């Protein structure tokens, strides 16, 4: 069922004379995306409301765009230092200290990357040997399996459960640790569930990493989008004991509505950052110069934008979650990111059926939870980075759909 996690090895060539496949085994191994067909379905219909996106609906705040234009006008069109511009690294160090009290040396412990996407790839390529294992939560962000696989590693998933608000637990990780385990990959706040680890849960994972000598890779791309928690967000960067084994991946895509700029960062111990830089300098050279100028402006004067966007997401989050509950789809409160992950068990459909029929019958796009791993079956991901009107209309349509398909009770 779950394509992401059950890659099958392609059959080896039968006889020596047969033509060798042109595509590398490692890439063949990666199954096609589970949502490919939804793209075609959406393209064939009009009036679709999509809650299937994974990015902000806001356009990058104007002052950030303006800073980029200024940078272009000044002719800043060359490569930057492989590590990223000194100004941006300096500002980033100040930002991380301000937010999380975490101190990173901008000369050696920060790397500006082409989004968290590249930062994750670099981390894995810099730290995994062939067949090393990486443990992450299930369901998880769809890129985790392919990037670990391409880095020669194996992704091992530890289930999370709705009853526990989909929090990744140290105990579930521990049961999966083997001599081959190299790292734990934590997405906090999490896509697709919106789960956020409290400080105690994060500290338990850090402790486990310490006792079993594992690296911690913390994908904190949604760190600025956290709502209704009793305590401030705990970045793994702020867990002091864990600092020397933690690589924090963060970015601008979600916090500042900058997905298309392709810029992010990694913060970690100097030896690992240096190894990552080695890969980065030969494969990427440097992150886009214009995007780095924009990111600098975001860090310098973007706090107000973050607060405004977070409040808007929070309003829509409540609207969507309450609406889903009202129409009978059980939904735990998502505390971060911009996704709700309701259960569709009451309809008796599989997540893929639900998503496909909802799209065909009512023109509302959501993502089947099974696309994110086996524990995602029985759920769908609904993104609330959409306008209030769109959310209301989507809920009206979903209510009609759920009523029509309610199992005879």
């Amino acid at each position: 069922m779950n394509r992401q996690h059950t890659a099958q090895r392609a059959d080896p060539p039968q006889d020596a004379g047969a033509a060798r496949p042109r595509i590398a085994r490692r890439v063949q191994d990666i199954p096609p995306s589970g949502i490919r067909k939804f793209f075609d379905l959406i393209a064939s219909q009009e009036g679709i409301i999509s809650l299937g996106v994974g990015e902000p609906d806001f356009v990058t705040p104007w002052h950030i765009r303006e800073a980029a234009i200024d940078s272009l006008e000044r002719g800043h069109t060359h490569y930057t230092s492989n590590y990223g511009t000194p100004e941006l690294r300096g500002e980033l160090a100040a930002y991380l200290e301000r937010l999380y009290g975490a101190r990173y040396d901008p000369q050696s412990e920060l790397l500006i990357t082409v989004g968290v996407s590249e930062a994750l790839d670099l981390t894995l390529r810099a730290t995994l040997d062939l067949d090393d294992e990486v443990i992450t939560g299930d369901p998880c962000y769809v890129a985790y399996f392919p990037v670990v696989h391409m880095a020669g590693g194996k992704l091992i998933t530890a289930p999370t459960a709705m009853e526990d608000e989909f929090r990744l637990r140290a105990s579930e990780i521990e049961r999966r640790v083997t001599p081959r385990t190299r790292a734990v990959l934590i997405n906090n706040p999490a896509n697709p569930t919106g789960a956020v680890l409290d400080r105690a849960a994060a500290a338990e994972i850090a402790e486990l990493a310490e006792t079993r000598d594992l690296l911690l890779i913390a994908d904190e791309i949604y760190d600025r989008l956290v709502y209704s928690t009793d305590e401030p967000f705990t970045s793994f960067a702020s867990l002091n004991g864990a600092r020397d084994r933690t690589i924090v991946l963060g970015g601008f895509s979600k916090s500042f509505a900058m997905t298309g700029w392709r810029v992010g960062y990694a913060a970690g111990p100097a030896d690992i950052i240096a190894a990552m830089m080695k890969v980065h300098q030969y494969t990427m050279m440097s992150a886009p110069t214009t995007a780095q100028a924009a990111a600098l402006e975001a860090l310098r004067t973007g706090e107000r934008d973050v607060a405004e966007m977070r409040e808007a997401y929070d309003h829509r989050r409540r609207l969507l979650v309450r609406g889903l509950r009202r129409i009978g789809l059980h939904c735990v409160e998502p505390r971060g990111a911009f996704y709700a992950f309701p259960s569709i068990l009451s309809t008796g459909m599989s997540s893929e059926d639900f998503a496909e029929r909802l799209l065909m019958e009512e023109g509302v796009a959501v993502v089947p939870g099974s696309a994110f791993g086996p524990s995602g079956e029985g759920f769908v991901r609904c993104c609330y980075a959409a306008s209030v009107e769109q959310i209301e209309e989507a809920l009206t349509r979903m209510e009609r759909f759920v009523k029509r398909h309610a199992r005879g009770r």
Partner: protein
Amino acid sequence: MEDILRILEQDGRTPPERIAEMTGRSVEDVRAAIAEAEKSGVIVSYKSQVNWDALGRGDVQALIEVRVAPQRDVGFDAVAARIARFPEVRSMHLVSGDFDLSVQVTGESIYAISNFVTSKLAVLDAVQGTATRFILKRYKEDGTLFETPNDAPQRLPLSL
């Protein structure tokens, strides 16, 4: 409270029920907060922002810079209040710099506006001089862009 105001400032028609859901408050609390804000003058009014230009209506607008002599005890306030009462005046501010009042007026024609300036405004005792600047095109008003490019930003319909 401020979150409720921000929602209404975006869309004054948002019903209390929806605001309640968006903010996690009870409908009664929201109603009470809005009533209080209306009563205390925090919410001043609700209206629609109309772009008459889109109807092809030829109303003319002008920004008038007015220099006035402040008066004993009341400063600029007495004369400002008199000017502000004219229905032609859409908005008005006391400003720093080489003039005192910035007055935005609207009229059916250039003549209507010049008539207003010469027969109503310039004749006031406290008014020492005016400079009228006709508005040629409106780009943004009260935070709303009037012309949005027709190639609206696009997101992929699905992304993970």
